[in-house]
C-alpha cells in the first residue's frame, strides 16, 4: 500500500496558511508532493460544496486550513467557517463518508513547519487509508450509468 500516491487538495486562506506554506517554501522545509493548494481570500469563503466537488473529482483527502481564531484578517471569517465545518463534518459522518479524509486546521503565517507537519502526517494517514473507493464507485456510476 505504501506506493499509493494519494491525491489531496488543500483549500487555504491567503493571509495565514498560504503565507505559512510560502514560509515553509522559503525555509526549504521538505514535504510530500501529494497536496495541491487552492487559494481563497478567507476560510469563510470556502463553501462545503467545494469539499464535495473535490471528492467527486477523485480527491482522496481534503485539507481545509486558515487563520487561528481571533487572527482572521477579516475579523470573523474563520469563526463562521468553523461553525460550518462542525455541522458539515457531523452530517457527512452520519451519511457514511470517511471523515478521516477531511483535515481541518489552523495554520498561521508564521507556522511554516507546522504546515509541513500537517501535510506530511495527513498524506501518511491517507496513504494508510488508501484510495477513496466508495466515492470512486459513486463517481464512476455517475459518469456512464443510463438511468431507468
Amino acid at each position, binding site marked *: 500500500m505504501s506506493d499509493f*500516491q494519494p*491525491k489531496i*487538495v488543500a483549500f487555504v486562506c*491567503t*493571509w495565514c496558511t*498560504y*503565507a505559512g*506554506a*510560502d514560509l*515553509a*517554501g*522559503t525555509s*526549504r*522545509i*521538505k*514535504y510530500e*508532493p501529494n497536496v*495541491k*493548494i*487552492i*487559494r*481563497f*481570500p*478567507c476560510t*469563510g*469563503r*470556502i*463553501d*462545503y460544496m*467545494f469539499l464535495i*466537488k*473535490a471528492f467527486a*473529482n*477523485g*480527491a482522496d483527502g481534503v485539507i481545509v486550513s486558515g*487563520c487561528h481564531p*481571533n*487572527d*482572521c*484578517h*477579516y*475579523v*470573523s*471569517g474563520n469563526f*463562521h*467557517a468553523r461553525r*460550518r465545518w462542525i455541522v458539515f463534518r457531523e452530517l457527512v459522518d452520519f451519511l457514511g463518508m470517511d471523515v478521516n479524509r477531511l483535515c481541518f486546521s489552523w495554520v498561521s*503565517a*508564521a507556522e511554516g513547519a507546522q504546515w*509541513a507537519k500537517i501535510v506530511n502526517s495527513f498524506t501518511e494517514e491517507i496513504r494508510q487509508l488508501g484510495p477513496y473507493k466508495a466515492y470512486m464507485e459513486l463517481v464512476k456510476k455517475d459518469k456512464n450509468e443510463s438511468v431507468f
Partner: protein
Amino acid sequence: MEKPRIGVYVCWCGTNIAKMVDVEAVAEEIKNVPNVVVSRNYKYMCSDPGQDMIINDIKEFKLNRIVVSACSPRIHEITFRKTLKKAELNPYLFQMANIREHDSWVHTDRAEATKKAKALVTAAINRINYHEPLKELSVDINPATLIIGGGISGITAALEIADADKKVYMIEKSNKLGGYTADIDLTYPHLSSVQQMLGPMIERMKKNKNIDLFLETEIKEITGYIGNFETIITPKNDNETKLSFGNIVVSIGLRSWDPSPLENYGYGKFPDVITSVEFEKMLLSGNIAKKDGSIPKNIAIIHCVGSRNKNYHEYCSRTCCTVALKYANQLRSAFPNASIYELFADMRTMSKGCEELYTITSRKKVVFMMFDQENDLPGIRKANINDNCEMIIELNEKRSRKFVEVPADMVILMVAMEGREMVKEVAQITGVSLDGNKLFIEKHPKLDPVATTTSGVYTVGSCQGPKSIPDSVSQARAAVARILGTIARGTAQVAGTTAHININICCGCQMCISVCPYSAISFDAEKNVSVINEILCQGCGTCVALCRPNAIDIWGCSNRQMTAELTALLLSD
C-alpha cells in the same frame, strides 16, 4: 465575454524552479490545453525583459488572459498586474501558479514536482477562462488623520502632519501626553534629559491649530474604509463628537510588565525590590533612596525580568540592557563608593553609542555577572542580621560556574514590555490582527513594517514591537510620509474584487447582512433584497459561501472560477 486567448509563461526563477521542475516540459505540455495561444518559459519573468515579453505577446497575439507560473502571488502579483496595465489589458485578467514556494522549494522528487507543476498551471489556466475584467474603484481621501495614543511616536506623527498643514485628531487614554517616554529621566546613550526634549514638543502640540487633542478619551468603534473612516468619541466630561478622517496611526505603545508572578524576585514582598519604571521616577524626583529613606550601599540591577523566557514573554524587550547601563552610570555618579552589581543574561547594546556606554560603565567598577534567564533565574531572599545588607541575591553565575551570593540593599528589575491591556479592543476596532505576543502584525516584516494589511491603518512605535525612542520616531515619520503621499494623491485604489448580488434571485433572508464583518451589506426594504456597498466590501467572501441560492458571488474568486480550478487540478494527473 470574448473567447479567451491565454498566454502562459513558466518562469525558471534562475535555478530556484528550474532545478526541481522541468520547466520546458511543462511549457511544452501546456501548449495543447484549450484556449492557450502562447506558452513560453523564461529565466526571470519578473525582470524587465520578462515583462516586456508579456507586453509584446499581448499586442502581437492579441492575448486577453495571462497566466504566469512562478513564485508566490503574494510577492509578484502586483508587479505583473502593473505589466498588464501597461499593455492596456485589464489587470484582473491575470492568474499566478505558485510553483516555487509550494513546489520546487519543498519537494525532492523532480518527476513528482514537475507533475505537480503541470497540475497547478493547468488549474490556473482552466480558472482564468472565467476571469472577468474588473474596474479598480478609486476612493477620495479625507485629508484628516486620527492618531490613537499620545506617546513619543504619536506626538512626532502629529507634529509632522500638522506641519504639513493637515488636520490631526489625537486620542490619548491618559490625562497627559508623552506616554511611557514622559516618565523617563535621561535618554541613553548620551544621558540627555528627556524633559527638555519632550517638553517643547508637547507645547508645540498644544498650541498647534491643526491638532485637536482629546485627552482621557477611548476609541469605541471605527466605521468606514481607507479615506473615509468615521468614529464617535466621548472625551471625559465633554459631549460626544463625531470625527471623520482618512488614515489612522496606531501608536498606543506598550506597558511595563508586572513582575509579581516571578515569586523568586519577591517583587511586592521586599519593599526595596523595585521595577525600572519606579526607579526612573526616583531619578526624575532626584533622590534615590530606599523605602525607609536611607542610602543604599549595595545596588543590584537584574536584566531580562519577564523577557526571553517562555513562561512570560519570549521576545527580547530590546532597550532594557542599555537602560540598565544608564542606571549603573547614574548610580555611580550618585553614590561614588556604593557596590553596584549588574546581573545580566546577554549584554545587548545594539544602536549607535550604546557599546561605548557599555565600555564606559564597565570602567566604573560595576560588577557584571551572567545568569541564564531561561531556566535558572536568580532568587532574592531576606539577608540575615550579620550580612549588613537588606537582601541576598542567590545566583548561579554562568561565567565562573559558581553559586554566589550578591548582597543588595536595593534591587532594580529591568521589566519587559508587553501589550497594553486594551490592545485587543484597539486591534478589533482598527481591523488589524495581533500576533501571539499581542504585538500588531505589520504588512511585511522587512519591506513594509509601518503599514498593516488593512489599508489606511499604520502601526508605529513599540506597539508593533519593543523599540527605542529613535526607532519609534523614525517609524512615526515613515508612516507620516506614507499618509501625506496618499493625501497628496487625493485618491486611493481599492481592489475591485468585491461581492455582487443578483437581485432577482435574492429572497431577502438577510443572513448575509449579519455575517458581513464590515457591514458592507444593507437591506433595500421595498425591493426586499440586500444591497452591497462595493467600497466597504473587503472581498472576504463569507457571505458568498453562506448564500443558499448563490445570489451573491465575488469578482476574482467566483464559484465558476474556483470549481474550474478545482476540477482541472484534480483531473490533470
